[in-house]
């Protein structure tokens, strides 16, 4: 079933409204080719991301989570992305330790003009999440719990 090429992973993208969100928008309007399986949640800054959001997304059944913010040094609020980076790093490492595949927790820096990069990130993230298969982590009976 996991090998089924039809299966498209559901990914939740937390995108900073000052950069990655606009980058994704640009990727869309300029008709870049990239997998259309990301649900996007606009956040005011990558610094708004809480590890709890990532866990909750996985608990809800998303197969992967992407947090994307401004490049280091470019944060609209100066340091939000630096703070996000620490949080994401700890979360990713820790989740790996308890048995969540690191491919499911992804982060990127994508600026408002980097439509190509956003498309590329989406592509790569989708590919990696696809490799680890549907998220059945939180299900009681091995079923995907998306619903």
């Amino acid at each position, binding site marked *: 079933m996991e090998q089924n090429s039809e299966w498209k992973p559901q990914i939740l993208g937390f995108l900073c409204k000052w950069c990655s969100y606009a980058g994704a928008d640009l990727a869309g309007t300029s008709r870049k080719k990239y997998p259309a399986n990301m649900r996007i949640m606009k956040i005011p800054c990558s610094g708004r991301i809480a590890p709890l959001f990532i866990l*909750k997304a996985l608990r809800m059944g998303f197969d992967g989570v992407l947090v994307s913010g401004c490049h280091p040094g470019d944060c609209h609020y100066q340091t939000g992305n630096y703070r996000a980076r620490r949080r994401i790093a700890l979360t990713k*490492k820790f989740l790996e330790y308890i048995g969540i595949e690191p491919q499911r927790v992804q982060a990127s820096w994508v600026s408002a003009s980097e439509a190509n990069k956003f498309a590329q990130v989406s592509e790569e993230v989708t590919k990696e999440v696809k490799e680890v298969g549907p998220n059945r982590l939180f299900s009681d009976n091995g079923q995907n719990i998306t619903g």
Partner: protein
Amino acid sequence: MDKILQDNLRKEVKALFEQKKVDLVIGYETGPTKFTTTPVLIKNSEEADRLVINDFITSNLAKMLVKIKGKAGIVAKGCDSRSIVSLIQDHKVKRENIVIIGVPCSGIIDVGKISRLIGKEPDEIDDITREKDAVLVTSGSEKKSLPLKEVLYEHCLACDLSTPAECDVLIGEPASPPLDKVASLAKINEMEKMTAEQRWQYWKEQMQRCTRCYACRNVCPVCYCERCFVEESEPQWINIAPNWQDNLIFQVIRSIHVAGRCTDCGNCERACPVGIPLRSLVRKMYDIVDEMFHYKAGTNKDDLPLMASYETREAEELIR
């Protein structure tokens, strides 16, 4: 730990009261059952004789500081003093409002371990005497010597900061438990040898036992939030009735929330009434923090808290 320490502590506390340096002192007194101690609030020099120092001073008393009014003295082992420093860094406690009475710690005895080793419960043991590298356990006519390393709490075996660095008075000479990092981290290392699936299965099984009594959180000196995310109702992050999924989310988020503030004092694991190996979570986080950010909780009160600071270049390998 010896009787002289205890006598010195009582003398010191009396002096603090007489010199009006404190309004109260938080310390340990003999607990209600064998081989236990319990936190006590001493309000005057006469009461100082209730204070004890022994091999069973388990609680991290820093927990009691946050809501205390007045100038408080506090008895602190190495890990406790670091928790106090964490609280100072988080502006939960003012350094000038507390008098830290440091107690060099040579490791705390885990009576549960002795129990398992000799097959008797604590109240069936008559005496536990600490010798240099061993403890002598007497139970009825039976006497058994157990290697000290095997009966100390696992977190003590990795504690290289056992003499409080941040303190106003130090009772006695610096001391250290016998260090054995391999033994201390054995459970974590074992876990890391497992596959991701096995690890997840392991935690799933552990979390099925959790009743959400929140003892782990409530004894944690750095879990001082007035309202924990688990109690939020809008949005409601986790279900109210316990289930392994949400129990695990609670523990994972708690581990992340205490990152950089947890001193591996072992309070959470000790508190768990259903024996979930919580230290295998928070200690791992402790090590991740150390490896990635070279940060050890509660070692410098003038440092910014871990999560309030950053380096411009770090952890970039994890980001696309």
